[in-house]
């Protein structure tokens, strides 16, 4: 069952000096439970592709349909709201709120969703335990290692019960041990709870774990390999 349908997606950055086609007529679909990696050299359009998919950047042309909703037909406020309830994000630099503890960072998304306090605390604790941080619930990001912060970011992305998670180079700032640990957690969540992950990555270790690898070059899909 397709949860994402991308049709003829185009993104052109048209500045005064230069016109760059970052995403060039991409047609793709993603099914529920995929564990996919979008790979390609720097400037191939990976991050732009993920931004368009996540409703962070507006395409020049084409459509992104998520679970039957044409994302870019929504108004800006509706897109933000759509993201809150349907899309989880994991960023390269973790990007946790530094003034909140690990528990509060995970809870925060559910707070935005308007879920009751008891429910969000219970789920946040469960998620942090699931990513191996049950003993660091009350630590602020500054007191956590990079790997631990990224695991909190994964727990945060999962907290909203999204339809899929977009992870932009999630292992780029992690050492090999932390990378292995994070990938195992995400793979487990994908396998056991059917959570869909779409990564953009350079990292061979991530590519190795992925069950689908989409290669981009100059904004076009060069290959789409399923394993």
């Amino acid at each position, binding site marked *: 069952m397709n949860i994402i349908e991308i049709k003829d997606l185009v993104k052109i950055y048209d500045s005064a000096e230069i016109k760059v086609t970052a995403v060039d007529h991409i047609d793709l679909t993603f099914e529920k439970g995929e564990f996919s990696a979008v790979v390609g050299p720097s400037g191939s359009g990976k*991050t732009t592709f993920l931004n368009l998919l996540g409703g962070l950047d507006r395409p020049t042309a084409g459509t992104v349909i998520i679970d039957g909703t044409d994302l870019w037909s929504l108004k800006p406020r509706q897109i933000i709201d759509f993201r809150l309830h349907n899309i989880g*994000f994991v960023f390269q630099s973790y990007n946790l709120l530094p*003034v909140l503890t690990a528990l509060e960072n995970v809870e925060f*998304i559910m707070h935005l969703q308007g879920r009751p306090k008891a429910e969000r605390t219970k789920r946040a604790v469960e998620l942090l335990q699931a990513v191996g941080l049950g003993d660091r619930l009350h630590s602020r990001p500054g007191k956590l290692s990079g790997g631990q912060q990224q695991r909190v970011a994964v727990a*945060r992305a999962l907290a909203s019960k999204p339809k899929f998670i977009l992870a932009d180079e999630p292992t780029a700032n992690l050492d090999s041990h932390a990378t292995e640990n994070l990938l195992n957690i995400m793979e487990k969540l994908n396998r056991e709870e059917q959570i869909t992950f779409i990564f953009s990555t350079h990292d061979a270790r991530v590519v190795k774990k992925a069950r689908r690898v989409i290669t981009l070059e100059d904004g076009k899909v060069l290959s789409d390999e399923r394993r």
Partner: protein
Amino acid sequence: MNISVIAWRNIWRNKRRTLITAASIFFGVIFAAVMSSMQEGSYGKMIDNVVKFYSGYLQIQQEDYWENKTINNTFELTDSLLQEVHRIPEFTGIAPRLESFSLASSESLTKGGMVIGIDPEAENRITRPEKWIIRGRYLHPGDSGVLMGNELADYLRLDVGDTLVLLGMGYHGINAAGKYPVTGIFKYPLPQFNKQFIYMDLPLAQDLFSAPHRITSLVLMVKDHYYMPAAKKALKAFIRSSYRLMDWKEMQPELVQMIESDRTGGKIMKAILYIIIGFGILGTVIMMFSERKRELAVMVSVGMQKTLLSGILFMETLYIGVLGVAMGIGASIPINTWFYHHPIHVTGEAAKAFTDMGLEPVYAFSLMPSIYYNQAITVFALILVIAIYPMVKTMRLNIPEALRT
């Protein structure tokens, strides 16, 4: 996780910057509050000088007296008028006066003086001349003597027990002349009173000026100026067209103008001060926004509406403002309270400048609540204006671009 908690924690991410910004507000508020207290206190003192030493808050006069202050423009004090006035509860004191200029002489010296016929008891409840007696005693009803200012007495080389000769013009041109023993010498804080004023019992003055039962003014006192409008309104309801009702502002337009122009000067100074502080806060807000662009973009990415994010940024600015205002007001209250109870007495040339204007040489302070809440309102208004910057920037935040920073 309440957004107000996030905002509160955010301002402490850079403690030094927050404290410096709050300190700039703190010093601004202290300066403005102490300055306002001194201004308002001094204005109050000026008004007191005029109202409590002489004019009262309201006066009933004959309709032409104010334009032409002669003994001919007097009116008869009737029982019905007094009864009507006594019915108004706002009045705390009612005193009739008959005033006229006269030549005051001793053996070989003469000087112009203001002869004021008073009801000694009623007058003492309003302007309290007894308080300022330095030699001799105060007047009793039916007294045949006079009280005179110390400077006038010194000039005429008179003292208690000596005889003062008065020569002037009485009602309808009749000569007014008489000899009066000096019963007491007074010294007001206002030198022009001491140079000119001669008090005597009202019937004695009416006899001197051949104006039986006539007065130039009925001086009326209320507890303070808040009660004046109601009292004035009540008086207007029954006052006849042959009378004229005047409040202290109408009787002292120069003082009102001086206070207003001084107040405007103070407002300009405070405005400049707050503009400088405002730029300081704006600088902090710009820094807070630009160094957190990426973080703000992440918050929008994960599903926070930009309006809510603007709310957090507004609250951060508000918290810094509240912190500065609270500290500033907290520190200025004891300062103003101290000076309220211990006003600054001006000496030397500065004191002379005060007395030349007919004012007590004192910098008094006020504890009016508006002194404090005006500062809070000003800083809040400043913050509302400054908060436009991060709010607009947040609404225009380009998420992909900010995520790359």
